[in-house]
């Protein structure tokens, strides 16, 4: 991977992490918060602005995609990688931080993260599915 591609990946990772911090805090998804809600919005905004500032002011970035720059497909793949890594990091860190919230799923999907920790919800969901499946298998085999 070229230095430029690595810079782009780091830029996307930081900017995406900032956006996720700000948006999840604004949407009151308490299970995904790393710090207080207001601080999270501020921190997220600052991280995104800092990422843009670093990427565009540290070096000339108007490079042709036939040279050192990235074409559309490369950009799409690197964006998915960077944003995916940012989301994964947020889910893991927020789960550890909010572990005591438990898995009080009072809603469906993302809505459940208003009052629950992501990994605990995921474990509970997986266990429920397994118990349901195992129970049905047992019922079939005995009947």
């Amino acid at each position, binding site marked *: 991977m070229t230095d430029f591609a690595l810079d*782009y990946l780091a*830029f*996307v990772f930081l*900017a*995406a992490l900032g*956006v*996720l911090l*700000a*948006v*999840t805090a*604004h*949407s*009151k*998804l308490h299970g995904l918060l790393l710090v207080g809600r207001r601080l999270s919005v501020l921190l997220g905004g600052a991280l*995104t602005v800092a990422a*843009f500032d670093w*990427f*565009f002011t540290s070096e000339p*970035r*108007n*490079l*042709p*995609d*036939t040279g050192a*720059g*990235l074409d*559309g497909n490369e*950009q799409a793949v690197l*964006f998915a990688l960077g*944003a995916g890594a940012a989301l994964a990091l947020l889910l893991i860190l927020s789960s550890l931080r909010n572990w005591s919230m438990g898995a009080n799923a009072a*809603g*469906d*999907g*993302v*809505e*459940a*993260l208003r009052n629950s920790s*992501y990994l605990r*919800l*995921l474990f509970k*969901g997986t266990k429920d599915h397994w118990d349901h499946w195992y129970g049905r298998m047992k019922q079939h085999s005995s009947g």
Partner: protein
Amino acid sequence: MGPLVRADETALLWLNSWVGHFPWLDTIVQWVVSDYLVPVTLSLVLLGLWFHGSTPGARERNQRGVMTAVLGLAFADLAVEVLNQFMYRPRPFEALDVSLLFYKPVDSSFPANPAAVGFAVALAVWTWNRKIGVALLAIAVLFSLARVYAGVFYPLDILGGAAVGAIGSLLGSLLMRWAEPLPGMFLKLARSVYLA
């Protein structure tokens, strides 16, 4: 086509003639025309939109908007690729004496790919979320104008790109309706792992 092409060139030369008059504007335009600033901004807005929403219903509308935008973007990109196989219009800096604020791209000037991408995403989101859609449309217009100012595209290339983007977003919307219940099933699957 003669008068239209002449008017196109005149409009480009007028806008590009301002280059050098306001150094601060040139610096801003050099950032805006970048291959990375607006595309990353649009993508980050889509990422944020996926998780944004005060109610489950509002969030689902946003998520459907994101899915429509991705489909619209794919259609617009494909249309530009296909059109480029059949037509080639030289870039303004190849035919006219313009002040260039960008590197020299080698692909066809018409239709403008950045305009197609920007308008496809903005219009697709607009169909689901008017407020964010209007903001994205403003970004797409700014991106397009900056590319003309920088001497990389003619105004007609931008209009052609915007039309391709609009058609792309329309096809994206139609596919979302036609493919139902698949989008609903995708959202249900993502909800089962608490990611939608």
